[in-house]
């Protein structure tokens, strides 16, 4: 029998334990022309799909999976991991250039990326994003390789109340970043929570707020909601503003390229955001969506010039992109150490291994260490491939925003339709997308920010599920929230973060400016 999980749990985290044979085996296969080709192919497909609003990496991985049935499992895994890495990075392109985030992870990129591109510096914005993505990917890769096992045990320490208070903290985070008005951000966040409620309640197993519509049994799905709120709403605005656009956005030719100075200046921010992204990425179901939100908030609070955030600020782009790529490494930690997937993408990856005849569960990688090295190696190479692909195609990518709207917008619209449909093969989701497009337009017209809505939508159900599970376990007692050490810490931090912006506002209440953001 190969190396057991337990040894890896209990003994100090050295990799001496794992056989070098399997490492060699994995690396040998990765560095064949075929292996490298698959990395490049996967990363570019991922970037492409991630960049198109409506299509996602998860979707592509699920679609590609049957094509790998005849292939060697290591090759299959290499291709799928590369797609994963590419897709998380690809979201930055449309988020920056068109203000259409393809995934929740790239919503935060729109805050500063889009304004910077609008100011005529799309290449700079993309350059910063690529640099940060690469750094985020590599730093979290380091965590994955060095600390996977000791960190993974942490996740069992999290009971329902810990999850609940953690999500509560994340919800409070968004209130402080969304916009200038705390009450509007909160309203948006709670609207998101409310609209996540129709469907079958996790705790009771009964359907609620469906008004007898059976298609609503599963509620509204994230992808159509997200595409509707952002892409459809944005396309509507783009068409409304057609004339002005063609005249105002001239691409500047100065200060485009990235300099070493940028790297140095953003160093601290990059490392901090990557670490935050990795740690948050660790938590199943939560990580990828809010890693960038958390890092952005921290960057803003730590910045000397917080007022510049949201207007096309370097630090904003860097923190968001470093963190969202770092969540990949974080989310792979439970997968590698315990065989437990942290996200939908990883569930599919794991499913792929099982279909290739490997036993799922915590022992999977104890008995097949070569797969661990394949995952780690593929992630490393895919990160490099992603940075190369993005770097080389930067000039070309930056011109996407100059493609005449008559060509670009109809194609994106159809992609949105296909993407919403393909999610679970039903047109109901396409109607949901259209309805949320209208809702997004209305909210933004009332100057209610959309980001808190999406985060509330994502996190509301997780909060409810865990609070319910906790209360069911204690037969209705709330006490453990205050007695369990981890949960009380999260609770206190949430309170402080909620109070901080209020205090700040009270201090500067005299400067009552109308919102600048459009």
């Amino acid at each position: 029998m190969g190396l057991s999980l337990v040894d890896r749990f209990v003994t100090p985290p050295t990799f001496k334990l794992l056989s070098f044979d399997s490492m060699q085996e994995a690396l040998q296969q990765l560095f064949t022309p075929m292996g490298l080709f698959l990395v490049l192919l996967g990363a570019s497909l991922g970037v492409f799909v991630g960049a198109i609003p409506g299509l996602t990496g998860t979707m592509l991985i699920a679609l590609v999976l049957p094509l790998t049935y005849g292939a060697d499992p290591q090759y299959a895994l290499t291709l799928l991991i590369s797609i994963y890495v590419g897709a998380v990075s690809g979201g930055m392109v449309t988020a920056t250039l068109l203000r259409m985030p393809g995934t929740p992870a790239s919503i935060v990129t729109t805050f500063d990326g889009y304004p910077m591109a609008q100011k005529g510096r799309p290449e700079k914005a993309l350059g910063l994003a690529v640099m940060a993505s690469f750094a985020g990917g590599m730093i979290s890769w380091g965590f994955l390789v060095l600390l996977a096992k000791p960190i993974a045990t942490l996740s069992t320490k999290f009971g329902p109340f810990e999850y609940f208070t953690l999500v509560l903290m994340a919800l409070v985070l968004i209130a402080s970043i969304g916009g200038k008005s705390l009450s509007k951000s909160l309203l948006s966040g709670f609207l998101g929570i409310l609209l996540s409620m129709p469907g079958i309640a996790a705790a009771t197993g009964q359907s609620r707020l469906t008004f007898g519509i059976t298609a609503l049994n599963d509620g509204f799905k994230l992808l159509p909601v997200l595409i509707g709120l952002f892409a459809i709403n944005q396309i509507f605005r783009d068409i409304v503003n057609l004339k002005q656009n063609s005249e105002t956005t001239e691409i500047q030719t100065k200060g485009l390229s990235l300099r070493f100075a940028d790297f140095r200046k953003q160093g601290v921010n990059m490392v901090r955001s990557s670490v935050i992204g990795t740690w948050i990425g660790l938590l199943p179901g939560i990580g990828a969506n809010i890693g960038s939100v958390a890092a952005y908030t921290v960057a803003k609070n730590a910045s000397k010039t917080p007022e510049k955030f949201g207007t096309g600020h370097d630090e904003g782009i860097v923190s968001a992109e470093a963190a969202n790529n770092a969540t990949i490494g974080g989310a792979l930690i439970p997968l590698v150490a315990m065989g437990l997937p942290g996200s939908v993408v990883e569930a599919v990856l794991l499913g792929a291994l099982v279909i290739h005849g490997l036993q799922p569960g915590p022992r999977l990688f104890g008995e097949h260490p070569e797969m661990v090295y394949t995952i780690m190696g593929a992630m490393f190479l895919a990160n490099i491939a992603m940075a190369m692909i993005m770097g080389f195609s930067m000039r070309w990518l930056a011109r996407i925003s100059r493609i005449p709207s008559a060509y670009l917008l109809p194609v994106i619209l159809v992609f949105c339709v296909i993407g919403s449909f393909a999610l679970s093969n039903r047109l109901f989701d396409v109607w949901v997308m259209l309805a949320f497009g209208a809702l997004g337009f209305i909210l933004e017209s009332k100057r209610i920010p959309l980001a808190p809505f999406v985060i509330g939508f994502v996190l509301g159900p997780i909060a409810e599920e865990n609070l319910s599970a906790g209360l069911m376990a204690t037969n209705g007692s709330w006490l453990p929230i205050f007695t369990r050490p981890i949960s009380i810490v999260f609770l206190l931090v949430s309170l402080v973060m909620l109070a901080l912006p209020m205090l700040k506002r009270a201090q500067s209440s005299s400067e009552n400016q109308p919102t600048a953001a459009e």
Partner: protein
Amino acid sequence: MNTSRRVFSIASALLICALLGWKLANWRSGGDASQFPNQPIQVVVPYAAGGGTDTFVRIIEKSVSLNDDFTQPIVVLNQPGGGSTIGGRYVLGSRPDGYRILCNNDALITAQLSGIASFGHEELTPIAQLGTMSLVLIVREDSPYQDLVALLEQAKTDPNSIRFGADVGSPAYFYARELEETNPGSVFNYISTGGGQKRYTQILGGHLDVGIFSVGEYVGYRSPEGTPPSQNITAIAILTGERNPSIPEVRTATEQGFPIDNGNSYYWFAPKGTPPETLGKLREILDTSRRDPTVVAELKKLSITPDYREGEELDQYLMNKKRSLEKFAVSPPTGLPNFPVWVIGIVMGLVVIVSLKNKQARGQKTTTSSGDRRLAIGAIAILVVYVASLQIGASYLYATVPAIFLIGMAIARGAKEKLLPVAQLALLFSLGSEFIFTEIFSVPLP
């Protein structure tokens, strides 16, 4: 500039011709409708990709697609959500031609019993039952409950003290209720935690006392001998009638004096009205692939028994299953706050606050940009008509080409010089996307 545009235009024209050729060739070869199957068979999996049922179906999918005797592959169509009712309902309303079938487990039965589905297995035609998972009861290895007697006696002397990880209304919940009944007076405290992995970490972390897993899950999750008991799980009983070859040391519940025999089986269903010949062919496909040595080996790894039932035997099996479970009424947990009411209350409160603030600040309000709203509304209206036409069954190609063309021309404000490129784009995109989705990935488009 102009030459590059011309090159682009010619290249796309060539591509369009090639794709049209593909479409035409398909048209003519697709004529032979007498032989089933002459197109890929969609298997609707009512769960997300990567789950247990999904993996099981994909093992069969792999076997069918690698088998040269079958001219058509089967393709997995994931339609998760609503406790497996969304996918079930989809197949229920599909054409009974054998090209769209369902694979589900006992959840199909329990969804109806717990009231989330208005339909049961009777509304579908069973094709076959292929594959059964034995079930085990899992505790942490250092748990005080090392056998069923200890567990059930504790549940009896102190009802609700055992934290049982089972989503209310799920198959596991019903099996647990059956177990409760074998020792009258015992009451478990059911806690909805979500999927198997989550339950596993919650048991390891001591947040749950016990849970039901399939033997396959247990074998995968259990760490080898020598692991500290606080970091490992152990099975205290098999809920299925016989011991399982993967874990011969674990005693059945019946052996321990609590008679219960339940396994979770996979069923394949077709819509009502599917012709018998088609059903026969589907059975042949399933029966052949379960004998495939790689399938046998992979199912063995997952500890799925490759048992097989069809026809009357299966009808009886389903009936018995339902009868054994339907006596347990689902009692939703009490004492939980009414979350929707809370959230609605908070939202209404915030609306009031925001609108009050808005009133104060109304003086400074600036009007939104007075761009061309009519144009945008027109473009979105075309989109809505497009989706509506797909809804009523228009083919993807015929709906998409005009949709792209009209929206593009609307945005271009009918400029004549855009006429040709937009038309080219519409054709290229529609044909190209259809090619990629149907030919490479063999998944349906709207």
